């Protein structure tokens, strides 16, 4: 039954896996996460109202993902479990995006190098600071590499096109209205079509709320209001 093993160089092996993961991710639609003056906006092109690409991990931590649904859903739930258990064992303020990002990076890297198939996902972990200068955006790739962004970050098939159209914008100085408009425009420029409100999924981490949990989904009505004004 068994064939004589072929030699595959490590370079080739990694390249094949990376190509495989990249192809899977490129098929999907994009997500863009942008800071605004009073919080962080997570915006996705997503025709499904229930299969979310954007989610709450903890009080001040949001999660966005593209790629294979079952894979990023597993990673999202792992993040929620990690955060809730950590917050319960220590304190709610001890749950940080940096710690969570490290865990994601190690898990993604471990699967990329040791499992037969890498995760076909890209993630963004966003943490809302108590003041604007403490906001954090981390972009994680399928191989576990992490990039720390300052103003906005896009992931998914057309991430480069979105990043290009947002290049140079200091979104952290703008209001939610302006940032939302820029985000929708960047998503539509990348796909050459304007997505309807019900094909968008959006949520914010809101610095102005008095609640402990700052994550809030924007429903279609709220998005239409943002688009009209």
């Amino acid at each position, binding site marked *: 039954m068994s064939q004589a093993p072929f030699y595959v160089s490590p370079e080739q092996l990694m390249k094949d896996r990376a190509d495989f993961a990249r192809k899977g991710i490129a098929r999907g639609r994009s997500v863009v996460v942008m800071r605004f003056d009073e919080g962080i906006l997570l915006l996705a092109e997503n025709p499904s109202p229930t299969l979310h690409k954007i989610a709450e991990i903890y009080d001040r931590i949001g999660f966005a993902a593209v790629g294979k649904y079952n894979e990023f859903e597993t990673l999202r739930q792992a993040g929620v479990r990690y955060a*809730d*258990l950590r917050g319960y064992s220590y304190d709610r303020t001890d749950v940080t995006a940096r710690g969570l990002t490290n865990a994601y990076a*190690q898990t993604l890297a471990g699967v990329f190098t040791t499992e037969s198939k890498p995760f076909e996902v890209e993630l963004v972990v966003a943490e809302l600071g108590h003041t604007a200068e403490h906001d954090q955006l981390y972009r994680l790739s399928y191989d576990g590499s992490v990039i720390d962004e300052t103003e906005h970050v896009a992931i998914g098939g057309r991430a480069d096109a979105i990043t290009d159209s947002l290049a140079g914008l200091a979104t952290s100085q703008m209001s939610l209205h302006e940032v939302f408009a820029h985000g929708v425009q960047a998503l539509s420029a990348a796909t050459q079509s304007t997505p309807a409100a019900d094909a968008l999924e959006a949520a914010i981490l809101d610095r102005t709320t008095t609640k402990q949990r700052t994550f809030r989904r924007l429903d279609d009505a709220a998005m239409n209001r943002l688009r009209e004004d």
Partner: protein
Amino acid sequence: MSGFSPAFLSSTSNSFVELARSLAPETLPQNSGRDLTGQSPEGTTIICFRTATGVLMAGDRRATIGNLIASHSMEKVEAADDFSVIGVAGTAGVALDLIRLFRLELEHYEKIEGAGLSLNGKANRLAAMLRGNLGLAMQGLSVVPLFAGVDASMPQGQIFSFDVTGGRYVEHRFHAIGSGSGFARGALKKLWQPDLDTSAAIGVAVEALFDASDDDSATGGPDFVRQIAPTVFTVDLEHGATEIDSAAVLETATEVVARRTRSARA
């Protein structure tokens, strides 16, 4: 491989308590194997009743150890989530742990599933947690919660009482738990009416807790020296679970005390 523990990735549970029990059992309340009766702070009165728009829950702030007052400012009633409240009577440490765990249980479920539990589902989950706590109850460290809230299918609200074995009972008008509950329930029988508006409901709550503190040494009255008022929460579908400002509660308490002073001197 570092990163997430494999259980985080493979778990299929949406219960935080189950997760903690399998991964970090040392963080959960434990059965210590010793009889701790009489060494730990306890005592309380928690009341809850229906109002015109939903439910109101209120509790005193005192914790006692035997004849001593252990705390003047304990919070024994808290919002469990946006649309429900929980109050706990019994051993203070276990009671506060139960509140914290239950809040996390609801939050964890909501985040994992992407949707909240129904009101009945929350009450059943709390009953299951109490059943899991039976070892502690048998040692005398029992806690009994009172749970109430609203949801879309029950906009008028529902009150649930429990016993230490995890029994769950629906209360239709009002209920009280804790060492002063008998006196508070007596007051509620005379004062409670259907369709109380918020300010009238706060008045009834303060009166009932005042009666409990009058006759039960483990229940604290409104504390004008330290400006500590009973905790009062209202829940309705429109505003969710809202804590009433303690200044407003103290103002109502001042009126109650003045009225009782007048009638005592008459």
